[in-house]
C-alpha cells in the first residue's frame, strides 16, 4: 500500500464542485457519523479538522440542475497530491453493516463507481483505486466477499476494502 499521495485540504476545498455547492464540504467525522448508525466506529477519528466532499449531495444537486433522476454515487471524495500529480479519491462507507453477506452487491458497487466518475468528469483525474470502508470487525469478511466480485487480481487492485484506520494511514499521515 506504499505510495506518496497525501490529503490536500486546499485542493479539496477549492474544487469546482464545492464552489458550486459549498454545503457539500463537510467534516470527515460528520460524514462517518451519518453513515454509522450502529456506532461501529469510535469518534473522533479525524482530529485535524479534515474536510471532504459529500458526493451524494453533489449528485443530488447535479441531478436537480439537469432535471434527471439521481444516479447512485459513492459517499465522499477528497483531493490528494504527490509526485507532481493531483487526484480525487472516491470512498464508499459501509460502516453500518452488521454482516457483509446481505445487501453487498457487485452491481450496486459498480453503479456507485460509475455514477461518481460521471459527476466528477471535467474535474481533476479520479484516483485509480476506489475504496470501500468497513468496520474493523467485518473487514476480513468484506475482503473475502469483494474477492468474489473481482476474482481478477488486477481488477482487485482498483477496488479495495479498508478500515477507517487504514485509510487514515494511507492518505492522512496518521
Amino acid at each position: 500500500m506504499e505510495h506518496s499521495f497525501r490529503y490536500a485540504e486546499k485542493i479539496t476545498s477549492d474544487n469546482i464542485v464545492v464552489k458550486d455547492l459549498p454545503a457539500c464540504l463537510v467534516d470527515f467525522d460528520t460524514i462517518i457519523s451519518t453513515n454509522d448508525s450502529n456506532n461501529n466506529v469510535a469518534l473522533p477519528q479525524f482530529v485535524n479538522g479534515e474536510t471532504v466532499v459529500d458526493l451524494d449531495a453533489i449528485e443530488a444537486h447535479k441531478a436537480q440542475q439537469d432535471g434527471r433522476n439521481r444516479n447512485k454515487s459513492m459517499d465522499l471524495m477528497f483531493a490528494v497530491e504527490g509526485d507532481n500529480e493531483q487526484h480525487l479519491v472516491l470512498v464508499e462507507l459501509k460502516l453500518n453493516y452488521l454482516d457483509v453477506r446481505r445487501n453487498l452487491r457487485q452491481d450496486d458497487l459498480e453503479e456507485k463507481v460509475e455514477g461518481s466518475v460521471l459527476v466528477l468528469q471535467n474535474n481533476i483525474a479520479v484516483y485509480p483505486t476506489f475504496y470501500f470502508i468497513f468496520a474493523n470487525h467485518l473487514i476480513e469478511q468484506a475482503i473475502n466477499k469483494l474477492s468474489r466480485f473481482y476474482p481478477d487480481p488486477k481488477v482487485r487492485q482498483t477496488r479495495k476494502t479498508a478500515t477507517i484506520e487504514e485509510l487514515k494511514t494511507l492518505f492522512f499521515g496518521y
Partner: protein
Amino acid sequence: MSVPQIRLKVDGFRAVATANIIIDGITVVAGENGSGKSTVSKLLYYLFKTACNYDVLVANELRNDLDEIFIFLSIAVSELYAVDDSEIRNELREQLHNLKNQKQVSQEQMERWRHFIAQVQQTYMATADKNDKRYSRLKRRWVYILKDILREDSKETQNADIESDSVLFAKIEELLESHFKTAMGKVNARPASLFETALSGVFPEGILPGHLEVQEYDEPIYSKDKSSLSIPFSIQNVIYTDTPMVIGKDGTEVDYWNDLNELLRKKSRPPFSNLSQIISKDVIKGDVSIDESPSGRAFLYKRADGMTFDLQDCATGIKSFAILQLLLNNGELNDKTLLIIDEPEVHLHPQWIVEYARIIVMLNKHLGVKFFIASHDPDFVGAIRYISEKEGNLDKVNYYLADKSTKDYMYNYQHLGVDIDPIFKSFNRALERIDLYGA
C-alpha cells in the same frame, strides 16, 4: 456464564501446542493444513467411543482372548466324537458357537463356558477309561496345543504336569477364569488404559498426549491423573466422518469408517423428520435408502423422477448428504450424539456447502445434535455463523483458529467465540497469493 457440556484440553501433542476446546452445540475449528485439526477429531472420537461403549469393547476384547480356548474346544469336539456321534457333535458345536457369539461379560457366562468344558472333559475321561485307541493320539497333540495356548516358555507351564488328564482341563478352565475375571474387573473399574490402548493404535508413533483432559460440566471424565474413565452423560454416541467416499466400503483398515458404515446400515425408522425431507426436496432431489433385498448390501439413491441408482455410482456430493439422511432416518442423530466432521465442504458446490451448513444448524437447533467440525471454507464458516444467528442458537456456537505457535510446526487453538473475522484473515492469505502470482 454457563458451564460448557464438554471441554477438551490437550497440550504438546503432535501439531497441537495448546487447545482448550468447548463443545456445547456446534464447534468449528479452522487452520492451515497440518495444524492438528484431525488429531483433535481423533482424540474426541476415540475418547467417547471408548467411554460410551466400554462394556461392549471389553466384551470384544474378551471374545478375542477366548479365541484360542474356543479353537481348542472346537478341536476337542470334532476329535472326541466319532462320525456316528455326529448329532451330539453338531449340537456341541452349535453350543460352542453360541457361547462364542454371546458378548456378555458376567459370572453367568463364565459358568456356561465352564459347564461346556466339563462336558468335553467328561467325554475325554470316558475315552481314556475305555482304553480307546484314539486316547493316546489325542492326548499327545492336545498337550502341545495347550502348552502353546499357555505360552510354553513360561516357567509355570514348564513345571506343570500337563500330561496329567485332570491338569489338562483344569489349565483350560484356569485360563478361562483368568480372562473372565480380567474382563469383569475392567467393566467394574473402567480403567482408562482401554482408551489409551485404542489411541496408541491410532497414532503411528504410538506416543500418547503428555497432557490430555476431557471434562463434562467442568469435571474430568478422563485425565492422566484419573485411573478410570467416567461414563459420560451429554454424549452417548459418537460418529466420525472425514470423507463421504467411505459410504458402503466395508471391512476397511480404518475402524471409524467401519463404525460409520455399521451405523449407516441400521434399519430406518419412519416417520422421517422434516430435516430428512429438506435434504430430499431442497438439496439432493431424491432419497437415500438401504437395499433391503436378502442379498442387498448397496445403498440406493432414488431420484425425484423415479430413477434409482446405486449410491456408489452417484456424485460424491450426494454421498455427503446421504450420510446425514441415513443417520437421521435410522435415529442415530439425537441430543446425545457427537458428530465429528472433517472438511464437510470437500466435494460440494458452494451452494451445497451452505445447504449442508444449514442442515447442521437445524440438527443442532431441533435435535440437539452436537458437532465438532474442521473446515477450510469461508462459505461454510460464514454460513454456520449467520444461519445460527438467524435461527437463534448462536449461543451454542464456538469457533477456534489454529494459530502458529512459537514452536515450529505447532499450533495454539485460539477461542474466537463467534467472531469469524480472524478466520477470514487466515483464508484471505490465499488472495494475497493470487495477487502475488496473478497480478
